[in-house]
């Protein structure tokens, strides 16, 4: 079955969801109000998997003929590398959830509307639209292939009936318009039955077309393409609170764009040294302040964050604030330089705090205090003694993301073995949960997991050595107002909801 990019197949996909990968949903669960992660329990709402056309075919093919690039994908049945989810993002209302994958596709899920006869389906997300955002390209000048992998998706706030989102790969940012069409003009008499244009001389009557309802169709059209502005690989995009501009950041430069202008962008940060030999750090992430359209932050590979004010100068090479924590000499190790590299930076919804993720920790910084973070959470400190092996299998370079919940009281980030962690900032409690096919049935309550560090391993604990480092959760998203989270585990998207007892 071929999925046309413009067709809405949500009914077909819900049928497919009840196929071999998902069991039918069980009894309904009440919706949650704002609670921390400690009080409620998390249940699996649905697990979504949108196979590509290739992998649909591969269901009937032999194992040998399947295109499997990485050995660990053999454990995920019928999955190809192109299906690996590379970014997840809720829109501003939480009604839509967008995912981008390595194959350059964007899949948008929409929340099931509340209905009287199917109460238990509220909170589930179904496929709303699928389109190919980026294609692989070839840079002939540098003899380099440009990957089509979607690095980031950012939604624009909704201003009319259509939805707009930005999606980017390594080099090009695109603005997509996703709109619904449920009416179609009918009654033209300009074409004959076969669809060919009639000779104008044969047309003797003027027929005004009438809008007739049709099956709902969701179409995605590229409205803007912002290309050729980045020499290095784009790692972040961020929409400004003025809704007119956005920025794109690569390893050494940050550019400011206007949505209406695609052939120009302002360079606002440039940390490229005149002599590349002197290069010591790169930009790893950047984000605009949620309310102040002149303020943004960017993080570096050295573990520092710079806050810049665009009012100060056109080129924001000199920061307004510089956040750096002095290194703990007792934690000094061979790899401490690379594990201090910040992989993600996020403003809190209030705009008062920023959260940064490096390899082993998540830190919360107060914008008013530059010399150290106000909170530090250990995500998987048991890996500190395993850094050498993690360097060998390249896991030490994994870039984990982190997210705030709607009220900025809980933060979440991913780990290995399909574990993800939540930290309640108020109660100081944390929980480790697992997103896996084997361990969770829909509507079942997720059991907190524990990693045994040493000594005697209790039942239900998992030892560090048996962690599966090929199963990593790099991308998660939290609904802007409710306790609904989306967790991307390789090619699966898990949606969990907080169930209040």
């Amino acid at each position, binding site marked *: 079955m071929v999925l046309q990019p413009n067709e809405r197949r949500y009914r077909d996909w819900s049928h497919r969801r009840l196929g071999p990968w998902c069991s039918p949903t069980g009894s309904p669960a009440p919706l949650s109000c704002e609670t921390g992660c400690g009080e409620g329990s998390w249940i699996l709402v649905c697990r979504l998997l949108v196979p590509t056309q290739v992998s649909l075919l591969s269901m009937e093919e032999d194992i040998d003929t399947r295109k499997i690039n990485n050995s660990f994908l053999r454990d995920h049945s019928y999955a190809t590398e192109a299906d690996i989810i590379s970014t997840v993002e809720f829109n501003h209302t939480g009604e839509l959830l967008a995912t981008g994958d390595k194959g350059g596709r964007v899949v948008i899920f929409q929340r099931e509307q509340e209905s009287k006869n199917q109460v238990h389906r509220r909170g589930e997300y179904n496929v709303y639209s699928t389109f190919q955002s980026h294609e692989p390209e070839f840079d002939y000048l540098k003899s380099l292939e440009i990957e089509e992998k979607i690095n980031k998706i950012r939604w624009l706030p909704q201003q009319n009936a259509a939805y707009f989102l930005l999606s980017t790969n390594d080099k090009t940012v695109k603005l997509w318009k996703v709109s619904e069409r449920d009416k179609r003009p009918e009654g033209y008499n300009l074409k004959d039955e076969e669809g060919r244009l009639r000779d104008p001389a044969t047309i003797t009557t003027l027929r005004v077309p009438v809008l007739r309802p049709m099956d709902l169709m969701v179409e995605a059209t590229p409205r803007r393409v912002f290309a050729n502005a980045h020499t290095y690989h784009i790692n972040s995009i961020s929409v400004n609170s003025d809704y007119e501009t956005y920025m794109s950041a690569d390893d050494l430069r940050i550019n400011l764009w206007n949505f209406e202008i695609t052939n120009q962008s302002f360079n606002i940060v440039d940390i490229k040294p*005149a002599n590349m030999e002197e290069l010591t750090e790169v930009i790893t992430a950047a984000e605009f302040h949620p309310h102040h359209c002149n303020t943004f932050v960017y993080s570096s590979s050295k573990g520092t964050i710079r806050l810049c004010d665009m009012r100060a100068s056109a080129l924001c090479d000199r920061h307004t604030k510089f956040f750096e924590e002095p290194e703990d000499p007792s934690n000094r190790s061979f*790899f401490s330089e690379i594990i201090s590299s910040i992989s993600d930076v996020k403003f809190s919804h209030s705009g008062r705090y920023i959260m940064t993720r490096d390899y082993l920790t998540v830190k919360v910084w107060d914008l008013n205090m530059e010399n150290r973070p106000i909170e530090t959470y250990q995500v998987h400190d048991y890996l500190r003694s395993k850094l050498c092996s993690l360097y060998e299998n390249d896991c030490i370079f994994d870039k984990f993301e982190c997210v705030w919940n709607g009220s900025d009281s809980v933060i979440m980030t991913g780990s290995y073995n399909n574990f993800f962690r939540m930290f309640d900032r108020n109660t100081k409690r944390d929980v480790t949960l697992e997103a896996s096919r084997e361990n969770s049935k829909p509507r079942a309550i997720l059991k907190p997991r524990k990693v045994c560090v040493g000594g005697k391993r209790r039942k239900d604990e998992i030892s560090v050595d048996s962690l599966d480092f090929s199963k990593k959760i790099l991308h998660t998203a939290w609904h802007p107002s409710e306790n609904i989270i989306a967790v991307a585990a390789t090619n699966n998207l898990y949606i969990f909801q907080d169930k209040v007892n």
Partner: protein
Amino acid sequence: MEVQKEAQRIMTLSVWKMYHSRMQRGGLRLHRSLQLSLVMRSARELYLSAKVEAHEQTEVPSLPARSPDPRLHPLREAQAAAEAASPDGEQPCSEPMDTQEAPRAEETPARCTPHPAKVSRKRRSSSLSDGGDAGLVPSKKARLEEEAEEGASSEVPDRLQPPPAQAEGAFPNLARVLQRRFSGLLNCSPAASPTVSPPACEGKPACRPADNMLNVLVRAVVAF
């Protein structure tokens, strides 16, 4: 001795990773290459300091305690290797070093011919002139050794100006590092006069018949 072997293993692994990162889709990742070069630098530093200490017949320290600040400029590390007895002394220097790096970067525009930092293998290898390298390397070596003897801790203006032919590379300092020490590492013996293999010295293969592997590896590193 184990420390040396471990450091050597990590160095080899890092070079291998760098070489393979060229072949992956999407081209070289600047951040990844930077991280690999940092690890390589740390490993080299570790190896050197362990070797110096073993040479001085003092107790070989444990691995974590010996890792220096990799942010140090590699030429400063050459001094640090000479001053291997005081690894902790490097740490207080790290702060002023960082601030000095910024003005250093600003000084370089005045001296270096600006090169577009394109990640182009072809352009880079062609910019490394064959004739220039043979003359460059001995003088580089001499300059580095001279600095190590002096133990200068302040900025030396000459140091800032790399050989113009190598300004193109992303991490040619790494190439120099490898040129100086890698042959010694691979052969498991300290190199009295390090066999040098300028990366683009394709016109004279007969000069260095024993360096085939070294040639490949160093060329891989420099060709960012």
